[in-house]
């Protein structure tokens, strides 16, 4: 899985945002504000990856057990998928 083509992450002085360009602009008008954790996850999803790879990256970066990391990942991916921002 990966983020839809054209969804770009941008660091502003007040946090990371996701902005749609090109194809992604057809499904997202405007921007998404991202928490630090969401930005971390989305950066891993800019290229093709798997749930296990991202969960491993989360547990390596944050003090969180695998079950909690997987739950957070699934929640975020569910929201992104619902908005049409994931390619499977």
């Amino acid at each position, binding site marked *: 899985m990966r983020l839809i083509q*054209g969804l770009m992450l941008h660091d502003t*002085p007040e946090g990371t945002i996701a902005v749609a*360009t090109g194809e992604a*602009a057809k499904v997202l008008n405007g921007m998404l504000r991202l928490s630090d954790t969401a930005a971390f996850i989305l950066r891993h999803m800019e290229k093709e990856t798997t749930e296990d790879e991202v969960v491993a990256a989360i547990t390596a970066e944050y003090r969180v057990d695998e079950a909690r990391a997987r739950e957070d990942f699934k929640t975020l991916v569910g929201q992104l998928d619902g908005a049409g921002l994931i390619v499977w």
Partner: protein
Amino acid sequence: MLYRFASMTVDICPRYRYTAELCEGYLAPEGAAADFTVRVTDEEIAREADGTRELPPAYLESLAIYRRICHEALRFDTFLFHGSALEMDGEGYLFTAPSGTGKSTHTRYWREVFGERVRVINDDKPLLRVTDGGVFVCGTPWDGKHRLSTNSEVPLKYLCLLERGEENRITPATAGEIYPAMLGQTYRPAATADMGKTLALLDRTLAAVKLYHLWCNLSPEAAKVAYRGIHEGD
């Protein structure tokens, strides 16, 4: 024919007379060399049609030409920002908001209240030129339905997000608070690399100017409240 906008010299080759007439106040000085050339295709002109109303090809061509200029302008650290910009006492003010909020009405109040101290730089689609020495708001002839612009550029000092309100009120704002609105009023190119450049220029702009959130009703008093709020403590 060579024209000059935001310190860029542009060779425009329109097929309709409309664009040449639109730009006649922006001719480049003699001997200037073109930074780039703009000649749009039939496809680019057709893409400007919004599908809801019949618009003359000459007008659509002018939109396509400006779109190309804005695309090229990124190489010159310059981008299009939707808003009504004015100059007063040598300082640039930019009022932005979604269409229909009353940007032009608000800057008209500034002209009514402050008279000849105020000059409209561009009433609709100014270019912002970002430099290490600050941001400059630049006049172009793509200047909205009231056709208000000046062939000049001034240091942009104040950027106000405008909203309708029962009462006139102004407060300082942070970039984070108004970022979604600012992004909404920024010309967003389709290519990801160009969008990245645009966002970098927007960030530099928001860091370089004073930001405000302005609520105003439809009365000239709004201009006085805005001016007082901006210059409080000067």
